[in-house]
């Protein structure tokens, strides 16, 4: 690990435990890249960190416009952290639109770095500013740092012979250089990455590296900053680390499962935000025998996955909410034919098209119940980007062992978020169990269940003596032939249900964050893990008897859940929906769990959960999210 030499030792260096930075600018300004590069540098340095990219809508917006703003927030720290931070300490705004949509989040007295060149009349108008905020005093409560990033970059690249437009493209590297200087980080990680990335475009590489140094040197010389800051490495576990996003981890986990099962993976999918990256990742992994099938629609995608499963492969399909709705009829075919199938739903804000790039957790009840008839499937939900890897393997373990469809319920926050990941030991993961039926002679009953798992035999074509017929019509448990016998249907429905319930036998004891009884238990699932954990830890820091638990197994619930719930006076269930998990808990355990719902396309902030905890503990009055009026009335 390299610690940069501080070249101006007289400059004050303040040590901080945690810093949250948000880079924002136009979609074309490369803010995702800037954020990612800073993240890598911090990671290599040894900080703990968490990131949150916030893309503009799936709709392209004109340059400089408010809907065109793209942001990337990261938090890095010398202690363990769980979220990318509620509010940025530092905001880098590359144009007026970015300033306008983001400055409200900046902490008071926070550092606000702007590219002053971009605050011209045209851009101010696009952002609907009537006067220049840099001059009208409206930013007085922040530490405003005006840098002429555009012209400084141009000057730095004067020699390159690039066009003005091309020079403009390197502004983000300049900005990155400034920030790297500010936190005393070396340029090495970014330089190495750029060398790799722009191998075939030496002119671009040269320009970007020049801009990067220029920004760094500007920090060094301009004396605009009162201090530099240091955030020491976090006491992280030793090991080899890499960066991983949720969607990457999901793809890797599925391939890992394929390797561990010794069965080929087939991925049928139709592109959809925010799940498409899984398709992109898997399509690169042909060397592991992965076959990806970009289907004509979501129904074809799941149909093909079922066909693959029927043939003895690992049939996988993935989508987001609207696609899950479309797949529902076919998923039921897998329920009825009892084939192993994994379905990924990377949730986004709905209903309908909703807000495709924004996060929400509002598909849980769709996953549970969104099919005709009594249709029981297993549901798992990863809680962090790296957890996607493990839960993807777990999804396959269950699907193969129980011959059951498993829904893997990710969300846009987990999927697009990324974190440093201590690369796990692959060899220690046990092989995944499965077995094909074999011809034992005599009559073959495709519905003769395993007494332990209730799984039916996986009888794949190509084996003499196992010829049989399956399908979506109810089948006799004795012969596998079509049956309309009343008792048979009742028993088969119950068997399909119980098979899912038996998965609970293998669910590990639920981990409780905090003491295992107390005044309040906060229960969450999915991407709210970080915010809940942080808020609960802070409450305990205030001496409160508050614990939390995060459900990764949602159907069936862990067997110890009911008992745990009963040990707390109150139960709070924060969700990014109008109430999904909370209803399941109330219905099953008759516990008066209190919902806390935010449906804003944004993750919870720690302080929001803190506010609700304080309300329930009587530390403060009723807590309301700032989105009044609740009825959404407009006008009369």
């Amino acid at each position: 690990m390299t610690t940069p030499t501080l070249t101006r030792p007289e400059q004050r260096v303040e040590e901080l435990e945690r810093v949250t930075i948000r880079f924002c600018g136009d979609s074309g300004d490369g803010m995702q890249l800037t954020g990612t590069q800073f993240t890598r540098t911090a990671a290599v340095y040894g900080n703990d960190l968490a990131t949150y990219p916030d893309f503009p809508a799936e709709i392209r917006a004109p340059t400089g416009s408010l809907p065109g703003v793209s942001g990337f927030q990261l938090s890095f720290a010398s202690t363990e952290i769980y979220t990318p931070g509620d509010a940025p300490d530092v905001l880098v705004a590359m144009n007026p639109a970015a300033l306008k949509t983001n400055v409200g989040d900046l902490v008071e007295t926070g550092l606000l770095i702007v590219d002053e060149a971009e605050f011209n009349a045209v851009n101010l108008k696009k952002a609907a500013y009537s006067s220049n905020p840099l001059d009208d005093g409206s930013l007085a409560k922040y530490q405003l740092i005006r840098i002429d990033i555009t012209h400084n970059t141009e000057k730095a690249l004067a020699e390159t012979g690039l066009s003005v437009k091309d020079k403009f493209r390197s502004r983000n590297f300049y900005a990155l250089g400034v920030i790297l200087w500010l936190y005393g980080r070396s340029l090495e990680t970014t330089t190495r990455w750029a060398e790799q990335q722009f191998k075939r475009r030496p002119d671009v590489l040269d320009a970007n590296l020049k801009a990067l140094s220029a920004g760094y040197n500007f920090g060094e010389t301009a004396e605009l900053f009162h201090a530099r800051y240091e955030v020491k490495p976090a006491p992280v576990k030793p090991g080899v680390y890499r960066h991983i996003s949720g969607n990457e981890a999901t793809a890797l986990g599925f391939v890992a499962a394929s390797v561990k099962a010794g069965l080929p993976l087939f991925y049928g999918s139709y592109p959809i935000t925010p799940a498409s990256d899984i398709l992109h990742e898997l399509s690169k992994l042909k060397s592991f025998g992965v076959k990806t099938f970009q289907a004509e629609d979501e129904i074809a995608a799941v149909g093909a996955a079922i066909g693959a499963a029927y043939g003895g492969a690992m049939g996988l399909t993935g989508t987001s909410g609207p696609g899950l709705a479309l797949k529902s009829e076919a998923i039921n075919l897998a329920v009825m034919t009892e084939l192993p199938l994994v379905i990924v739903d990377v949730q986004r804000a709905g209903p309908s098209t909703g807000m495709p790039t924004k996060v929400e957790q509002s598909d849980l009840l769709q996953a549970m119940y969104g099919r005709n008839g009594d249709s029981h499937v297993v549901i798992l939900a990863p809680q962090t980007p790296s957890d996607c890897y493990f839960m993807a393997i777990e999804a396959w373990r269950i699907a193969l062992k129980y011959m059951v469809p498993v829904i893997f319920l990710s969300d846009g926050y987990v999927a697009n978020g990324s974190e440093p990941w201590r690369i796990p030991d692959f060899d220690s993961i046990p092989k995944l169990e499965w077995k094909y039926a074999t011809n034992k002679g005599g009559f073959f009953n495709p519905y003769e269940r395993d007494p332990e798992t209730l799984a039916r035999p996986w009888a794949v074509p190509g084996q003499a003596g196992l010829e049989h017929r399956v399908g979506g019509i109810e089948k006799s448990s004795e012969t596998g032939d079509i049956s309309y016998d009343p008792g048979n249907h009742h028993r088969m429905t119950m068997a399909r249900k119980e098979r899912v319930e038996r998965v609970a036998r293998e669910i590990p004891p639920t981990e409780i964050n905090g003491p295992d009884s107390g005044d309040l238990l906060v229960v969450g699932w999915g991407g709210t893990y970080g915010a809940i954990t942080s808020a609960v830890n802070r409450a305990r820091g205030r001496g409160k008897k508050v614990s939390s638990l995060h459900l990764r197994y949602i159907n069936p619930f862990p067997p110890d859940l009911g008992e745990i719930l009963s040990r707390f006076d109150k139960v709070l269930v924060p969700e990014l929906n109008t109430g999904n998990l909370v209803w399941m808990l109330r219905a099953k355990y008759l516990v008066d769990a209190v919902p806390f719902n935010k449906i804003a396309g944004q993750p919870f902030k720690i302080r929001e959960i803190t506010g609700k905890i304080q309300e329930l503990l009587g530390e403060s009055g009723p807590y309301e999210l700032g989105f009044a009026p609740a009825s959404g009335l407009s006008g009369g």
Partner: protein
Amino acid sequence: MTTAYSVPIDNGSLIGDDLPVYTRKDFVSNQEVRWCPGCGDYGILAQMQKMLPNLGVRREDLVFISGIGCSSRFPYYVETYGFHSIHGRALTLASGLKVTRPELKVFVITGDGDGLSIGGNHLLHAMRRNLDLTVVLFNNRIYGLTKGQYSPTSEIGKITKSSPVGTTESPLSPIKIALAAGATFVARTIDRDIKHLEQTLDAAARHKGISFVEVYQNCNVFNDNAFAAFTDKEVRQDKMLYLENGKPMRFGSNNEHGIRLNGFMPEVVHDVADDSSLIHHDTTANPVLASILAGMDYPEYPVPVGIFRAVDAPTYEDLVSEQVAHAQAGGTPDFNSLLRGGETWVVD
């Protein structure tokens, strides 16, 4: 090909030298056949069961996949692997199966409602992908299973349960759709000409790539005699045009009529000399001739049956397998190195 990461079934081999000698009976399942007495589906089943023993494929390597409809009951009656899926989606299942199990011989059975109404989109895409599947569409111009509503192949004005004063929609031509989507094998046959039916199924099954067969099938309960005007034994020779590759297009009990091209429009000529008739070429890469034939509507023209088109093209599953094989050329990769593939750092 791809030994690593393929489905670990070892006897999934096409055409082995120790192939058992099959008879028709080997392909008759123990399931009671549940079509209405007199239904045209019986004939198609019988010819399929007659054809299968000679196909040179082990019974256990055969799979029949269907959607929902009377026609889609078919897999129950053939003694091999069968999947009676959901309405309109048989082709999607077949695609996933074939891509992962290229060594299997996969048949898809569908109906005019199943394949062209709810399943129309999958038909287009399966055709263009050229998976090696044999698709048989039972066209009875009616919804049989749901008891008699019009289908996308019902003629305009048809009175059915859902069109009490007649339909107002032009029918689709399955052949035209298959051709437009680029199917490499396209044929039509009828339930009542069992010899032609068997030959056509056989040719379709032997085609490497997607093969599409439209069978005019009589639903004697809800749409009786829909095709009788030209399929009846007595009139067949005069009302149907049996296409034969390389042969002139002639028809009539004495072969006295022929098809000639007037510009790009076909026309019927009577009492012609052999050499003035159009010669049928089902292997022409450009499907113009096939399109012309597909556009020959009864009663203006005789009804063409036989193979409209049969051209070679690489199959989807082979191309995909090649990509996988190519990616694996360097040997079985190590998952650990994939995990550590990108940028990493060490904390100690």
